[in-house]
């Protein structure tokens, strides 16, 4: 014969209506008794035993002696069930919180202070539920509980192994995808819940269908065919997928955010192109009014305050790259525009004789050991391997704001460049020397293509009428603004 589990019922502060529900089971009680052996049930039997497996606790806990008794029961029982609402959460007994214990004693036992004093049976404290005192394995709720519910729980406990109320640990598999930094919109597969809002918006609403669901099962991700990257798959950078993502797995790349995190971690060298410096200074009224040299010092000092390991002058490399090959046989063609340089290197290298290593950024990269950040007017610098961050003047503004550096309160005396600087009187290569006209990218490229008479450093403003090489997503700049910058730069460098 299979040994029946022993069941005991215990009552604490409560109306005992829940136990009455069991007593009222009528013929079903026979079924219950077939399954278990009731060893303690004050309401229906005289016998009592302290040897039991399952304990039903009814009522809430009001006194220290109740608490001690409950802890003893917990130690004896394998399974402890909070039975009825009073045990589960305190129920109506918890309403007593509106009065103090003293007030209640006076109301209920008037004139019996001497008897109550020091008597443990009257030592009450604010009501506790059972699970405030001991661990509870199961809860049967109801006021009163439904009798068939009791039967169900008892049957379940008898027939199946006991699984206690525990939090289940789900292990998540992190997907180690290579970091994809090709596109403006980026994707973090480990955050993605595969709701498909992004792909639906991209396909159904916008009709672009740049991103879609790829693979099956646990490998499913939002991606592009053959993993070519969003930008290569016709992404129009509308940002609808980013704003529709409920968990933030799609996000737009921000150099400011990335730099903000990396500044504390690694040594970064800041190379300042003074054309971008001019743009930055002209954005600030307070800096604009100062002497150009002083405002430059303010900016350099603020950059050092941000946490850059070194702040160097990029113009130095610009100049160096232009004069380096003056005595060579081939024509010297250099440009501080990466797009024009790339164009010349790709298309015109054989006929004109351009050396790729002549570019200013290659000189910079070969000399610097730290990660390089460039303050540049041109976002196409992003395409150069070895330059990790490219900040434009508005980006720098944002960085100052996010890291709480106020440029007005830095000490301009600290604003000294590390490394070599341009001697006084040398112009920024961006300033045209021969004529007052600004040369526009497409004209220059045409000149290179049609004639062989493009000698000497070129002053190309690719941004003026669209980028020479089709790169960069920035707005084109106005001629007037460019002239303002040149005016400021001429003052700064002391050129007449």
């Amino acid at each position, binding site marked *: 014969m299979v040994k029946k589990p022993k069941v005991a019922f215990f009552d604490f502060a409560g109306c005992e209506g829940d136990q009455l529900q069991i007593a009222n089971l009528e013929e079903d009680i026979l079924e219950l008794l077939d399954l278990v052996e009731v060893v303690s049930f004050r309401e229906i039997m005289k016998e009592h035993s302290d040897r039991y497996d399952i304990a039903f606790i009814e009522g809430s806990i009001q006194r220290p002696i109740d608490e001690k008794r409950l802890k003893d029961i917990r130690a004896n029982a394998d399974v402890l069930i909070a039975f009825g609402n009073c045990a589960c959460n305190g129920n109506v007994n918890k309403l007593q919180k509106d009065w103090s214990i003293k007030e209640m004693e006076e109301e209920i036992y008037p004139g019996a202070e001497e008897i109550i004093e020091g008597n443990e049976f009257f030592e009450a404290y604010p009501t506790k539920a059972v699970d405030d005192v001991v661990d509870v394995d199961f809860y049967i709720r109801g006021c009163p509980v439904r009798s068939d519910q009791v039967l169900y729980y008892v049957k379940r406990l008898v027939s199946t192994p006991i699984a206690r109320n525990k939090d289940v640990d789900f292990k998540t598999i992190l997907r180690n995808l290579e970091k994809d*930094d*090709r596109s403006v919109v980026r994707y973090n597969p480990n955050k993605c819940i595969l709701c498909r809002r992004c792909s639906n918006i991209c*396909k159904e609403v916008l009709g672009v269908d740049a991103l879609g669901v790829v693979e*099956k099962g646990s490998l499913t991700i939002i991606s592009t065919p053959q993993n070519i990257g969003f930008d290569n798959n016709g992404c129009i950078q509308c940002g609808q997928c980013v704003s529709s993502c409920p968990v933030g797995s799609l996000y737009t*790349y921000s150099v400011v955010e990335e730099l903000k995190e990396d500044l504390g971690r690694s040594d970064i060298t800041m190379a300042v192109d003074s054309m971008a410096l001019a743009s930055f200074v002209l954005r600030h009224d307070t800096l604009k009014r100062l002497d150009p040299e002083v405002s430059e010092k303010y900016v350099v000092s603020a950059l050092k305050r941000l946490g850059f390991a070194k702040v160097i002058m990029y113009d130095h490399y610009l100049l160096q790259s232009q004069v380096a090959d003056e005595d060579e046989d081939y024509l010297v063609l250099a440009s501080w525009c990466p797009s024009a340089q790339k164009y010349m290197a790709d298309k015109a290298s054989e006929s004109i004789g351009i050396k790729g290593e002549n570019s200013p950024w290659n000189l910079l990269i070969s000399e610097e050991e730290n990660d390089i950040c460039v303050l540049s007017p041109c976002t196409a610098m992003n395409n150069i391997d070895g330059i990790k961050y490219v900040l434009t003047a508005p980006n720098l503004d944002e960085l100052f704001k996010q890291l709480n550096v106020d440029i007005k309160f830095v000490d301009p005396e600290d604003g000294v460049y590390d490394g070599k600087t341009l001697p006084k009187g040398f112009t920024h290569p961006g300033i045209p020397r021969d004529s007052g006209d600004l040369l526009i990218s497409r004209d220059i490229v045409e000149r290179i293509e049609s004639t062989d008479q493009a000698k000497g450093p070129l002053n190309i403003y690719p941004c003026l009428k669209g980028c020479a090489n089709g790169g960069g997503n920035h707005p084109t700049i106005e001629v007037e603004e460019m002239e303002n910058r040149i005016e400021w730069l001429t003052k700064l460098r002391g050129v007449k």
Partner: protein
Amino acid sequence: MMCEDVEVKELTWEEKRTLDKIIGSLEDPKHDKLRLLQLVQNEYLSLRDEHMRYVADKIGTSYTDLYGIATFYSLFNLNPPGRHTISVCMGTGCHVKGAQRIMKKLEKVLGIKVNGTTKDQRFSLKSVRCLGCCGLAPVIMVDDQTFGRVRTGQIEGILEDFE
């Protein structure tokens, strides 16, 4: 941002004609993409990048869409399969009898991973769920021949028969 140039192979005149024929054979190709991809795969053994691009363009959908379908169904291959296909049963019965070990051994012998194809195009390795002969577990199939109660030591011998 960095944008790599994606090179797409040009289709030959014959390929275009065959694909057009397949598209024309379906009543409503835009809503019968599964059948369409199946027919393309039957023709060329696998779904190639340039073919899917062409077909997507023709039926007025996107490559992203077709690629999603092609990677979702295990029916479709993106890479051409080998001359012989080895299917290793990973069902419950075979799993209990050590299908994992068989799979590991096969991966080691062939030098490829699951769903891969050997460099000489001789074998493709696939995992399947229950071949319906659990009494023979663990089971592997090479093309349409079934091998039951396989031991890791027998694997090389089995593969020798397939050239």
